[in-house]
């Protein structure tokens, strides 16, 4: 049973990692007042780009970098439409969710033509393998048997917390999401910060997608983001727009997912789909329980127009 718990925890952390990137992407976007439900799509492009570049160069780190750049490129469409054209954010996020995966599927299809070989790219090594440690101790596995991207995820959580609560720039950034007009009168470049938020969001969502193909699974399949972008959206709300909260939410979802897989193995009387429902039902139940104290950025989802004075 001890090993069951240990493996459950390891699996939870493993499954939470891509969610952390995607949730942070959403957090940065919403903190600047932009609700971006398109990160599911951005992650799809990031995932494909990461896979292709990692395959071509043989370097997963370049894959992640390329995933970030691709994420930024796609999110700039969202940025231009929602910030400059004041398009409805939810609507445009939807558009990105339809456009980006179609593009990813198309590029994959065209690049690999009608070849029918399974293409596998190399994965990023873990710190444990880089250091050549052989121990299989639980703590060693938990803290050392992780790819550099996992450490990056947790470092980003800490940096984000510091940025939003301890720095002047972070407070300005938050002000854009709360009271953009007031922020503008204080001399804050509201439009600039909104674009910046889209760059950060695109990069993180692209990395989150690339994580799936450079650190998690060796193969790319269409639809491999599998709703993680939407779970991330829920994680931001669940985590009450704070980076610590987001981390807890991601670990919670990772845990639910890891648990349902193990429950399927133990129980064979209930149809397996009921276990697969666990992460989604848990999301609904948790959100229903915590209710909505208006903790989100106040101008979230609303277009900002300079002329609006």
């Amino acid at each position, binding site marked *: 049973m001890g*090993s069951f718990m240990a493996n459950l925890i390891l699996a939870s952390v493993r499954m939470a990692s891509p969610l952390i990137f995607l949730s942070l992407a959403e957090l940065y976007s919403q903190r600047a007042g932009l609700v971006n439900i398109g990160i599911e799509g951005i992650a799809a492009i990031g995932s494909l780009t990461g896979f292709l570049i990692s395959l071509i160069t043989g370097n997963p780190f370049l894959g992640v970098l390329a995933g970030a750049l691709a994420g930024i490129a796609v999110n*700039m469409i969202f940025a231009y439409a929602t910030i400059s054209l004041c398009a409805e954010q939810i609507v445009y996020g939807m558009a990105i969710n339809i456009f980006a995966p179609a593009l990813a599927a198309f590029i994959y*299809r065209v690049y690999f033509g009608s070849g029918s070989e399974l293409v*596998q790219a190399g994965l990023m090594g873990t710190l444990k393998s880089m250091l050549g440690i052989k121990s299989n101790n639980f703590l060693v596995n938990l803290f050392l048997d992780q790819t550099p991207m996992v450490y990056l995820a947790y470092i980003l959580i800490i940096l984000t917390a510091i940025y939003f609560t301890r720095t002047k720039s972070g407070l300005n950034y938050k002000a854009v999401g709360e009271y953009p007009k007031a922020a503008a009168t204080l001399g804050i470049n509201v439009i600039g910060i909104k674009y910046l938020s889209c760059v950060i969001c695109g990069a993180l969502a692209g990395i989150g997608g690339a994580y799936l193909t450079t650190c998690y*699974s060796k193969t790319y*399949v269409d639809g491999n983001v599998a709703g993680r972008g939407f779970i991330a959206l829920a994680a931001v709300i669940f985590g009450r727009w704070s980076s610590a909260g987001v981390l807890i939410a991601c670990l919670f979802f990772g845990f639910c997912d890891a648990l349902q*897989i*193990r429950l399927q*193995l133990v129980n064979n009387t209930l149809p397996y789909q009921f276990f697969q429902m666990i992460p989604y039902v848990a999301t609904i139940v948790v959100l229903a329980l915590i209710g909505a104290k208006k903790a989100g950025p106040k101008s979230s989802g609303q277009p900002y127009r300079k002329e609006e004075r």
Partner: protein
Amino acid sequence: MNRKLIAMVVTGAMIASMAPTFTAHADDTRTVAMICDSSISDGGWGMACYNAMIDAAEKTGWETMYSDSIAQSAYYDTIVSYCDLDVDMIYAPGNQYTDAVLQAAEEYPDIAFALLNGGADTPEKAVNGNVSSLLPNATQIGWIAGALAGLMSESGTIAFIGGMELDTTLAKYAGYGEAAAFVAEENGKTISVLDPVYSGDFSASDKGLEFAKAMMDQGADVFFGDASAVDSGARQAIDEANEANGAIKVYDIAQPADLLGQNDCVIGSQVTDNSVLIELSMKAVEEGTFGGETLYGTLQNGVLSAGELNKDVVPEDVQAKYAEYIQQMVDGTFMGGAAETEAE
């Protein structure tokens, strides 16, 4: 914004130019068209079915066409648009196409429809008698993998990962378990098979990875599966575990093509050569005898076989024993000549 998009598209187009050009088929030769809901490069089912068609076509000189990754709502439309192009045969690998095939077969009586893994009773449902079922024997498939699992398992626990709860999947699982238990007992071991798990699809390799990790935690040391890309995820997890242990201690038996060498953990493959069945169907079309029958694929007629074993991992005496069991299966004496249940 338009400019940005165009730039992206042009980039895509440049990538595209590396790909082979697509061509329409000429009219003077016979043509077979395959439809598939998964990708033909999934390293599993789609790939094996596509390659089988290519192999059969090479032998018979037919031309091939295919559409893959098609949505459920487009099965019928895709089949019909091939029918409108006057192809000679539609090749639909999977029983999920049964409804679409039967409907199209009714509307196009002159076209042959080969349904792989369809029901044994499907051909008689076709009013025009132009549908044949190609049915690899799922129990024998399970046996081929199970005998090797029974010989190789040291922990006494073996695992099976399924894609969907198809009856063929259940039959493979049953055959796998009974063969492993039988072989183990003959060699003084006991084997238990973990309950089957299902990913619910054939594409989520990350689910395969997590399943395999969880099942290894439960002591499983031989894996067999029926889930295409999901299996490749499982193999990745097994490779990682072996690497961490510094030795190949957990094994995977691949299917439906010989995948030896694709991953280190693959010790052997259960091979289903559907090209034999497709070739038979093509010949029948050429001779005008196609339709209304169920063609079974078995060890006896060469559709099923055991692939190469990994000689570095499987000891020589085990190789010999395994070959013996496979011979017994071919001779019909395996497990004391247990009645071969015809699984659908």
